[in-house]
Structure formats: C-alpha cells, structure tokens
C-alpha cells in the first residue's frame, strides 16, 4: 500500500476531564481508502479521541488536520459538514419518527421552502438500498430491531457525502450475517475512497476488515501497525499491557469441574429453580428449564432468538402467561422484579444504560441501590456500611476511577458494568442472570467478569450466562441451553462441545448436533 497523504491527521492531542487525563499527546491519522481500527481497553481513550475528532469535545492541546487544513469543529454538525460522519455505539436516532425522517433528518429535500416528503422518502429509500436494507421508509424506526436501527444509522451517515466514516462498535448488536452485510458495505465504501474508522471489541472482525490498527492504552498512544504485520497475541498484549493467561486457566477449571461432576451429578437433587412450560404469547414459546445450585447455564442463540426474553420471564421482569415456576421445589410466582429479588433471583439487563445504571447517582449509591430497595426506605444503610460496600467492590472488581463519589455517567462502559455487577452481588444473589455482561467492554474487563462468574458458581451461586459470543458461553457454562426462533431447542451438558457443535444447533434448530 502506497503511503498517501492522510485525510485525517491528529497530532499531540490532549484532553483532560475533571480529575482524569483522558488523552495525553496522542497522534492519530487516517488514510483514504483504508479501514483503520482503533484498539484499546475501556477507558483507553478511544471514544474520547473520536469525540475530539467529531467536535463533541474540545482539545486542550494538539492539532487536528483534515485534508491538510487545520480544523477545530465546534459541533458534530460542523464535523459532518467537514466530511466526517459518525455512527455511535448506542444508536442515536429518534425511535418515534419514521425511518425516512431519521435518514434524512436535517437535510430533507425542500421545495418552495417546505419539505418535499415524496423526495425525502425516495432519497431515503435509495440510501437504505445502499446499505442493503429493504424496509418500508415510512415505518416507525422504533418498530425495528436494534440491528436494523444500526443499519439505518449507517445509511444516514453514508448519506452525508462522508470522506471519513466513524463506526463506533457498530457490530455489537448484529448477528453474524448482518456483520457480513455490514462488512460488504464497509468494503464498498472503502473502495470508493472513504477512510473508515472502525472500533470493535471483536478481534475476529478487526482482523477481517481493517487494514491498519492504532492501539491506545490509558490515554496514551502505544503504536500504529499494519493489521497483516501484527499477531493477535501481540496486539492483545499491547492493549492490556500484560500477558493474558487468566482465560486459559479459567477454561481448564470449568472443564475440570464439569468432568468431576459428570453428566448425572444432579440426578436426585432438587433444582434451585425450575421452569415448567413457562411462556408468554408472542414473546416466547413454553420452555422447560432447570437450574441447579452452583451451576452456570449458558444461554446461546442468535439475536432475537428469545434469550433475553426467557431471562426476563424467569426473573419476574416480564410476566409469563403460561406455565409455572418452582423455587427449590416450591411453587412460586414472581409478579415483579422486586419479588424475584426478595428470593435472591437477579436479572442484570443487557441494556446497561437504560435498564441498568442510574447515571446521575454516584458509584456508591448505585452499588447500594438494590440492597437499599430490599431493606425498605425506613431502614437506610448506614453511611459507614455504604462506604465499606463501595470500597470493597471497587477493590474486588477493579472499578476505575476508584472513587465512590464519582457519578456513574462519567465511567467507561466496562466500569459501569462492574458497578452494576457490584449492585447485584451486594444483595448476595442465589441465582444471577447476566444478560450480555461483557458486551461492548474490553478484553481485560471481560476476563475479569468471566473469572468472577466462575468463582461465584464455585461458591454455590447459580448463574445464567447470556452472550452472543459462543467462545465465552462455552468457556464458562456447565450446561448450555440453546434458543432459536423463540423456543428452546436444546439443553445439553457442556463436555467437549465446540463452537461448531453449537453453531450447528443454532443454525438448524434440531437436536442432531447434541452429543449422545
């Protein structure tokens, strides 16, 4: 690849937030017709760097050049006008408007000073076609799945004649086919000369799509590499700054416990929780599921297969309309999450921001919340005890910054996830249902959370672990339940299962892939 002049050239960028140096003299450049991946753990400064480029944050020092001209965008609108378009990790569109309105928002074709709706719809349909989306432009955005919304966001970004397209975790809610579709679009944009900045925690995807990598760690630049010239293991080490043997150990340990117990270890035991024909019309077909004490049950399946929906029924977040529930053999019903929590059944939502953290409250308050709700308002947790709780979880889970007074909204995604975990652990759950606990967080934090799950199960807690990443499910689970098209299609012990076995079951939905 010949060295062309970079379309984006950032030099010595520094940004300081109250108490945190988010970026410290970082250089970053993007070449036209290249896919460039920005790599780093949570809090490494990836998002901050992107926001500095797109005019969301103002830089304290350094310079930004686009096409050789020094720029300083005051807003994302200015950045867009300068040819830099962004699709953020969490879809930032308006669910109560139509798809066409979302795609064209702010640049609707006009006629006689009013919006030409027919042209708006037509133009939107063209843009949607470019990203291979075949949906009705007049339908409400909110009626579509997150994956589709993501593609709508991309078609919106493509619509502005973007010289630079920034995709921040675009694949975190897409399934494998949708990812390939997205990559096809990325490649065609790249070939037409667009510089693409791709941020993802999925290493496979990074290696598949990107030409060049820039690694950040703790707000500083580690280096820029050509993708074909750096080995994965080296990349990971550069990102986390240490050797990654934790995961291997973990795998061995899970395997060991599974082998010890054997397949029929639970025979005769009363399961901690048993669902019999539990279902909800239009959401999930009746399901039978048993969860034993100290067991990690992996819940696998494609996006929209009913993984989260099943978890929400089990934990009283949504109400089932058929079937029954047994808790340690006793018939029970959870009408609300509160009742489930009273029985120490916890659901940790996949939607960290909207259903997890309370962003304007401090780390301490967030950790104490569920415990406090459980005790009732008239029995406040003493201040000293709150501090102890916060301190101990900050220490145990490595929450950064280690400041119990920090507002949770100022933490990175991985740290927010840890705060959420701390909240649940504080009420000493018997069954912990973790819905995508590692989504959108970095490898180091991922490993820590996986290790935590494993430790908890060893101490007798039951865990339901939901993840789109099959490796992760395989690594942690004693047993794996597989969902497809809103029903449970397989429930199998995890001994010597491979990703291929799982994929086979997920794909064809039969039990043929089940080992005898």
């Amino acid at each position, binding site marked *: 690849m010949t060295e062309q002049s970079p379309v984006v050239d950032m030099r010595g960028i520094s940004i300081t937030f109250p108490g945190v140096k988010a970026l410290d003299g970082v250089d970053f450049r993007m070449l036209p017709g290249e896919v460039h991946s920005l790599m780093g753990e949570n809090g490494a400064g990836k998002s901050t760097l992107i926001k500095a480029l797109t005019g969301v944050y103002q830089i304290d020092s350094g310079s930004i050049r686009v096409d050789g001209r020094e720029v300083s965008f005051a807003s994302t609108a200015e950045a867009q006008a300068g040819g830099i378009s962004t699709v953020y990790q969490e879809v930032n569109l308006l669910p109560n408007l139509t798809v066409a309105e979302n795609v064209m928002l702010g640049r609707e074709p006009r006629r006689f000073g009013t919006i030409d709706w027919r042209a708006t719809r037509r133009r939107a349909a063209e843009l949607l076609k470019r990203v291979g989306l075949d949906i009705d432009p007049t339908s409400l955005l909110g009626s579509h799945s997150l994956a589709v919304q993501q593609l709508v966001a991309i078609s919106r970004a493509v619509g502005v004649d973007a010289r630079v397209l920034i995709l921040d975790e675009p694949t975190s809610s897409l399934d494998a086919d949708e990812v390939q579709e997205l990559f096809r679009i990325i490649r065609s944009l790249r070939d037409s000369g667009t510089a693409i900045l791709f941020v993802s925690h999925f290493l496979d995807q990074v290696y598949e799509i990107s030409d060049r990598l820039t690694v950040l760690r703790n707000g500083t630049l580690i280096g820029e590499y050509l993708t074909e010239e750096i080995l994965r293991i080296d990349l990971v080490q550069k990102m986390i700054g240490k050797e990654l043997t934790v995961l291997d150990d973990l795998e061995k340990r899970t395997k060991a416990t599974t082998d010890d117990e054997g397949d029929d270890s639970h025979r005769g035991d009363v399961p901690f929780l048993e669902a019999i024909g539990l279902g909800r019309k239009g959401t999930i077909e009746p399901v039978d599921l048993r969860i034993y004490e100290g067991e990690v049950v992996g819940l696998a399946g494609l996006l929209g297969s009913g993984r989260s929906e099943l978890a929400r029924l089990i934990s009283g977040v949504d109400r089932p309309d058929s079937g029954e529930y047994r808790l340690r053999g006793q018939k029970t019903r959870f009408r609300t999450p509160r009742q489930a*929590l009273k029985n120490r059944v916890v659901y940790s939502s996949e939607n960290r921001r909207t259903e997890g953290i*309370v962003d304007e409250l401090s780390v301490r308050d967030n950790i104490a*919340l*569920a415990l406090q709700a459980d005790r009732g*308002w008239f029995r406040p947790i003493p201040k000293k005890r709150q501090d102890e709780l916060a301190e101990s979880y900050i220490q145990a889970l490595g929450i950064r910054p280690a400041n119990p007074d920090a507002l949770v909204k100022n933490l990175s995604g991985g740290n927010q996830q840890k705060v959420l975990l701390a909240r649940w652990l504080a009420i000493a759950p018997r069954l912990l249902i973790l819905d995508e606990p590692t989504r959108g967080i970095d490898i180091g934090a991922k490993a820590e959370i996986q290790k935590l799950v494993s430790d908890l199960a060893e101490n007798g807690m039951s865990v339901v672990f939901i993840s789109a990443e099959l490796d992760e499910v395989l690594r942690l689970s004693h047993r794996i339940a597989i969902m497809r098209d809103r029903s449970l299609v397989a429930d199998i012990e995890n001994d010597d299962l491979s990703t291929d076995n799982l994929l086979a079951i997920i794909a064809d939905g039969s039990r043929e892939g089940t080992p005898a």
Partner: protein
Amino acid sequence: MTKLMSNRLFWPIVMLAALLVVNLIAFPGFFSIQIRDGHLFGSLVDILRNGAPTLIIAVGMTLVIATRGIDLSVGAVCAISGAVACSIILGSPDPGSVATVAVAIGTALLISLVLGVWNGFLVSVLKIQPIIATLILMTAGRGIAMLITEGQILTVRSDPFKVLGSGFIFGIPVAVVLAAVILGLAALLTRRTALGLLIESVGINPEASRLAGVRSKGLIFAVYVFTAVCAAIAGLILTSNQTSADANNTGLFIELDAILAVVIGGTSLAGGRFSLFGTLIGALVIQTLVTTVYTVGIPPIATMVFKAAVVTAVCLLQSPRSAEMIAAARARRARRKRLVDDAASGSGTGSGPLTPTRSDSKEVSV
C-alpha cells in the same frame, strides 16, 4: 472561589442577597426586627410569613419533580381545603370553638389526602403523564371548591382559625413555624432515611430502579399525596389570613410560583437530584421579589415585568451553558496570566498552540 461559583445555589443566593440589599437601600429600616406585644415584627418577618404557603407547596413539589413528575393541581387543592374548612366553620353553631376549627382543619386535610390519592392513582397506576393527570384536578378542583362554597365568598370570623394565618407561637408567626416544620420533616424523611435516594433513583431511571427492586409505584403515589396535603395546609393558611374562602382566587397561580421556587433552587424539571434547601432559597427569592416591588415603589402595572426580569436573570445565570462560559473565561484569563508569567521568567515554554476553548456541544437524543 471557582468551586463556590460552580455550586448550583451560588446565583440564587447572590440574587437573594442582592434583593435584600436593594431593599435596605430603599428602606433603611428594612432589616430591623422589633418585638411588639411579645411578637416579632419587621419586613423580614413579613417575607417569611407571606412566603410560607408557597414554600410549603414547593417542598411537596420538589419531591414530585424529583420523580420526573409535576403537580399543577396544588392551587385548586388550596381552594378546596379553604372552602371545606370555612363551610364547616360557618355551618357550625359555635364557629369560635377550638373543637369546630379542629374538625374543619382535620376534614380539609383528609379531603386533600383523597385528592392526592387521586393524582397518585392517575400517575402511578394508570401511567398518565403527570402534567395531564394533574391538569384534570387543576381545572376540576376550582369547580369542586365552587360547589362547596355555593358560589359565595365565605367569610369566617373564628379566632382559633385566624391563628393559622396571623397568629404567633413564641413570638414567631404560626405560618412560618408550620413551613419550618414541614420543610424540616421533609428533609429528615428524605435524607435521614433512604427515601431521598430512592426518589432520585426513580426520577433518573425508572426502569433501572424497577429492576433493582425499588417500589416506584408506591413512592410516586406517596409524593403526590404528600404534596396535596402540603397544598391543603397552604390553603388553610391563605384562607385564614384573608379570613375568607374564595373558590376562584385562593391559591391562584401558586402552582407556578412553587414550580419556579423548585427550579430556582436547582432541582431539574427532568427529575433526579433534588435540593430542599435550594427550594427554600427559591421560595425566599420569589417572596422577597414581591416585597421589593412594594418597598422600592415600582408601579403596580410594572410588577409582573419586574418579577419576570429577575427570574430570567436567575435562570440565565444558572444555566449550564453560562456556567461553562464563565469557566471558559476564567480558564482563558488563567492561561493568559501563565503566558505572561512564562514570558516574564524567560522560560517561554510555548505551551502549545492556543486553541480557543468553546463550550461543549452535546447531541440531543429524545
């Protein structure tokens, strides 16, 4: 100093102080408090006493707003409670007896409790948007009050009832004592228990709170009931002070003053973090403003404009954007000073290119 200025209550307190100084200049005896017949008298005492009804309602309103709600019906509840109390007193054979007045007050409070339950039911069980839900009682409530008074202005002569509005306890106006007790009670209940945390949590993220086991339905119910009772107490004070219940005018527009007090006090209308102390400052600013109009001698026709100007000033100074602008101006000055110092010491480190600091632009997502 920077820290002090970034405090949300900095500008409201400055405004309050400024208003008091204006009054002092216009009327040198403004701060003097005398004891007459064992009672406190003076302009400051008047501000406290006249501001008491607004403050009492604003305390309830703070909690409602913290849950992302709003209660427009408080003025109507004032009118109803005044009407109920007055009609009972008038209808009794012995309007001057303490027992009659106690029954009248008790009934008025009980009815307000029912009205609060109505609001709470609409908002927390039927999930109607608070502004719509309480609009119902705001409009219907004055009609109910009208029915109770049969369209008359009920004038009562009852000494025990008069105490509420114009009486004294240990030399302090009863209304002020009531307001202090309610404010203190609310502060104690929210900050000494976990009520405050749970209310804020529900206001910031209702769904996350539900998943964490917070009983948001009950909490939301409770704040509307509490606010209705506050409104009833305020209504009784107002009625007692005027010695008459007027279905049309008792507590008219008091909901707006109460909401304003809460907002000046730094509690966001979007819900979440709240400050009862801020609400106290807010209520005092509003009442001092009204008093200033009289002491400075602003013509009555210009009163509303004057009030609007002051409120606008507070809101502008308090806005996040102006806080950023002030911070940016300070940073610029500090940097310039540093450059000058560097140059003076001859060490000219260059300190990097000067990028103009601009305020943060955030994307708006609905």
